[in-house]
């Protein structure tokens, strides 16, 4: 018999970026808000304090801030005919854990999708015709436009104090920014970071080839900053410990630096850690949620928490898992193509070329997660999909994020991976390498999807979620196209040695090497309930008092890092909740 807690107006599942924002905005509405976080509490001091957090072995290799697969994982297979096996050792992607979620260990790249990305199916049909869409590809529009999201994306960027340079201010192209971005209403809140040497070289080479280099929009503060909640950032010191680490310097935007101390002051906000939500409970008529049942780790018992409004703010994969476990919405069936929950899982297609220079000293330990230089000349809006034979795009970028001894030790091809030869190569090449990367879109297909595993169960006895995913020819053609654009830039920089790494024909998904933690889809948004799990306000089509935040809403993956869009969508959804839903709770579409 589950313990029952006093009813709250709102229960939020997961206290990362979206949970913090929804918590703040709904607490400001005067509602009694409870956030349930299954991990531990975390704060800058002591969890990220100097110098303890700059420990690559503990946090980079042993994943100190990531989920432990023994507590939470999923099974993975490449095709519908394979038997999925559990993801027992983290590799390909690294979901975060604890208060702040992945918002503490991200690098801080904060992008907006291009205007065409929100209406990709319409764009392709209008510009190239529907017949270029491969039959297995499930191309969909988001149901929301760049113009509608603009003020909310701006608000998120001002919450985070993003350092960057606008390229398109209300339709006017601004020199030095990204000329291919969707129009924005305001300049970035902070000026760009100072360039590292590698990004200066890349910018010069790209400019010489007629491309349009601009500074990457970064959640590493270039100056002291105070946001709308009075929360503060200090200037980044380029220590090179962003990805996989919490920021020791109050310089990286995170729920901790940007929201949580302000939220914790609110008497109508409460959060409980080590409280893992097991399922969302439904009313008898199946039209609303009544609250959630969670496992209270400290008491060792299940708790029913009633609430009028449930906001699912977990990591995208866990959002889908909870919907499936709670039997909310029709599960997607990849054989028939029917159903919505689990539909359109997609990933990210990245590649890169590493350049080695005997005579250049990069001092790569001077770096940050998201400074650097990018070109968007081969982005979605700039590619003739019919001519090139694929649908997709990438940004191409350079900038040292650090020079850590274990993971950021780029060595030329054919270097031994251990022993005297390796040592010699480290002495010879450390600090002499840089890379130019492509970060690209990934489309969703009939058989890239999420469902419940028939065999494996988690520690609570619930079925694990099963991922079915493999690389597809369309996306491999896209990344090969990027290779053909990056290598000439790299060659123009005259490196002594070059090493490229792009997926090629026949590449199979390998879960072992780290690729990216940009897992998206599975609870996608849209204007049609037959092909989406949530409507354009991220409201469940099935339970109108359930809203689902996060990148699980992306119908296919954008070419950018997802956090900017995730934050913009959270502010967009909460605006609809405040303005339209709370005065009259009902399906908004």
């Amino acid at each position, binding site marked *: 018999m589950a313990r029952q807690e006093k009813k709250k107006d709102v229960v939020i599942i997961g206290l990362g970026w979206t949970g913090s924002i929804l918590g703040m905005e709904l607490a400001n509405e005067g509602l009694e808000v409870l956030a349930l976080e299954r991990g531990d509490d975390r*704060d*800058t*001091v*002591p969890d990220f*304090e*100097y*110098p303890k957090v700059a420990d690559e072995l503990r946090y980079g290799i042993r994943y100190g801030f990531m989920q432990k697969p023994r507590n939470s994982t999923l099974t993975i297979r490449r095709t519908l005919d394979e038997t999925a096996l559990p993801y027992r050792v983290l590799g390909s992607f690294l979901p975060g854990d604890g208060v702040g979620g992945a918002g503490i260990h991200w690098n801080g790249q904060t992008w907006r999708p291009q205007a065409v990305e929100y209406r990709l199916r319409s764009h392709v049909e209008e510009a190239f015709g529907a017949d270029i869409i491969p039959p297995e590809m499930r191309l969909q529009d988001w149901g929301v436009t760049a113009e509608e999201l603009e003020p909310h994306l701006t608000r998120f960027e001002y919450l985070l104090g993003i350092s960057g340079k606008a390229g398109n201010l209300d339709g006017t192209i601004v020199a030095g920014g990204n000329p291919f971005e969707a129009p924005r209403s305001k300049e970035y*809140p*902070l*000026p760009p970071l*100072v360039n590292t040497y590698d990004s200066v070289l890349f910018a010069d080479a790209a400019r010489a080839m007629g491309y349009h280099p601009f500074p990457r929009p970064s959640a590493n503060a*270039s*100056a*002291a*900053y*105070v946001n709308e*909640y*009075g*929360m*503060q*950032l*200090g*200037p980044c*010191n380029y*220590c090179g410990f962003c990805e996989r680490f919490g920021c*020791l*310097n*109050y310089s990286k935007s995170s729920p901790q*630096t940007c929201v949580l*101390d*302000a939220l*914790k*002051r609110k008497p109508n906000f409460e959060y409980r850690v080590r409280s893992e939500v097991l399922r969302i409970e439904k009313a008898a008529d199946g039209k609303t949620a009544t609250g959630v049942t969670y496992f209270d780790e400290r008491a060792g018992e299940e708790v029913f928490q009633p609430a009028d409004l449930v906001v699912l703010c977990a990591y995208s994969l866990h959002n889908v898992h909870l919907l499936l476990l709670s039997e909310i919405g029709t599960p997607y069936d990849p054989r028939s193509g029917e159903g919505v929950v689990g539909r359109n899982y997609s990933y990210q297609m990245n590649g890169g070329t590493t350049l080695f220079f005997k005579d250049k000293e990069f001092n790569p330990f001077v770096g940050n997660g998201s400074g650097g230089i990018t070109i968007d000349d081969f982005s979605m809006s700039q590619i003739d999909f019919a001519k090139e034979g694929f649908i997709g795009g990438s940004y191409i970028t350079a900038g040292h994020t650090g020079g850590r001894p274990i993971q950021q030790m780029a060595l030329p091809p054919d270097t031994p991976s251990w022993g005297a030869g390796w040592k010699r190569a480290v002495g010879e090449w450390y600090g002499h390498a840089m890379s130019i990367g492509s970060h690209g879109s990934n489309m969703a297909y009939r058989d890239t999807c999420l469902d419940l595993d028939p065999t494996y169960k988690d520690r609570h006895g619930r079925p694990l979620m099963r991922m079915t995913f493999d690389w597809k020819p369309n996306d491999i053609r896209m990344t090969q196209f990027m290779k053909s654009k990056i290598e000439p830039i790299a060659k123009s920089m005259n490196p002594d040695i070059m090493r490229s790494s792009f997926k090629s024909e026949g590449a199979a998904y390998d879960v072992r090497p780290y690729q990216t933690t940009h897992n998206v889809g599975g609870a996608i948004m849209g204007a049609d309930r037959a092909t989406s799990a949530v409507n354009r306000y991220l409201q469940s089509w099935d339970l109108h008092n359930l809203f689902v935040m996060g990148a699980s809403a992306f119908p296919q993956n954008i070419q950018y890092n997802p956090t900017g869009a995730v934050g913009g969508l959270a502010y967009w959804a909460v605006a609809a909740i405040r303005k339209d839903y709370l005065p009259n709770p009902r399906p908004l579409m």
Partner: protein
Amino acid sequence: MLTLLRIIAWLLLLAIVAALALIFVPARHTGPQPVEMAAAGATGDPDAAALYAARVADCAGCHTADDGEPFAGGRPIPSPFGAIYSPNITPDPETGIGGITLDQFRAALYDGIGRDGRNLYPAMPYDSYRELSEADVEDLYHYFTKVLAPVRNEPRETDLPFPLDQRWGIRAWKLVGLPEAGFEPRFDDPVLDRGAYLVEGPGHCGACHSPRNLVYAQAGFTSEDPDFLTGGEIGGWTAPDLRSDQSAIARWSDADLKLFLASGRNAHAGVRGEMKLAIEHSLQYFSDDDLSAVVAYLRAIGPAGAGSGAGAAEAPPVGQPIPRVDRLADESATETERLLSAAEPGMPLGARLYLDNCAACHFVDGKGADQIFPALDGNSLVTAPKVTGLVSTILAGAALPSTGERPAAVRMPGFADRLSDAEVAELATFVRGAWHNDAPAVKEEDVRGLRDAGAD
């Protein structure tokens, strides 16, 4: 000879009679003090006005223990003679002040006399509270008898050594230590008079920021007294001088001063020590008008000509990047900046420790970053005569208070587990002499005794 003995005997008798009088003759209570001046922005809501009065007088700073219920007492108040434990001032009839009359309440505030007639230790700033207006006394009485809920809590008894445990001695001390009761407006300017009232009276700023005289009484209670607010000491820390031409008042702008008082941080400094409690419990709740009045008054009583705040180099404002100049090529760079920027392996130990532990936030120019990383160049905590504040900060770290205006409880980690006593002394000596600072060295012995003090 006989005459001399007789005189001594008479004096002895007189002293005994005086002592007996001090012990047994009930003290007279000072009556209500009408103060002719504009009151705080009257809200019309008596409960809100009462809460505001309690916050302005910072009752919580002493009467709330760490992790204790508000106003339920038990906080140790440091004094040179030992800790004095604050009583429970919630209206609990048995452990608090339930049933107290207005006259008894006023006697505690004005005369330092408890309900049972006992003389209160002057850790209770009744010397300053003697300036409270009757209106504020009544508001406080309303708050502590009607608004606040009773909390049952028996705080620890204060146990000072003999003769300080003889409460009648306090009565004798009061004869010389207490100023006249009542507040006299004297600026012919409602803003300055309000500021004077707040600072001298309920705000009791002089309790820490004024020196103490031979009998440990506050050396001055109004701006008429030359020693008032010229710096004091609390718990071994220096409470900075607020009236010299080197004071924060002289060097900071009005906006900087107000932001510091409201949030504990500004372009120059982050609050430390007991002042953090004053901001946490009291100053963050001051109305904008009252903060302005406090700042105007502090300016008015400072050195002539000071007060534009133009004396100090301003840190870059929010949103403006720290200029990254080549310190070695920059002619205006200080010697310290050159030393740190050159980063020669043979540099002195203090400089190397600064680069390895401090420069990431406080930078080689020692200016930190606006509102988040305090400047060390010109920081009164760094250059204070008493090194306790600086050394404790290096050892145990620091945390800014979470306030409405700036909720982030920004923390500096402690370095006790990373630096030896000798290294802390080297580092502290370095920052006390770096940039424009010119304060004497810190000795290893100074560090040793402070190592075990906890973080706040």
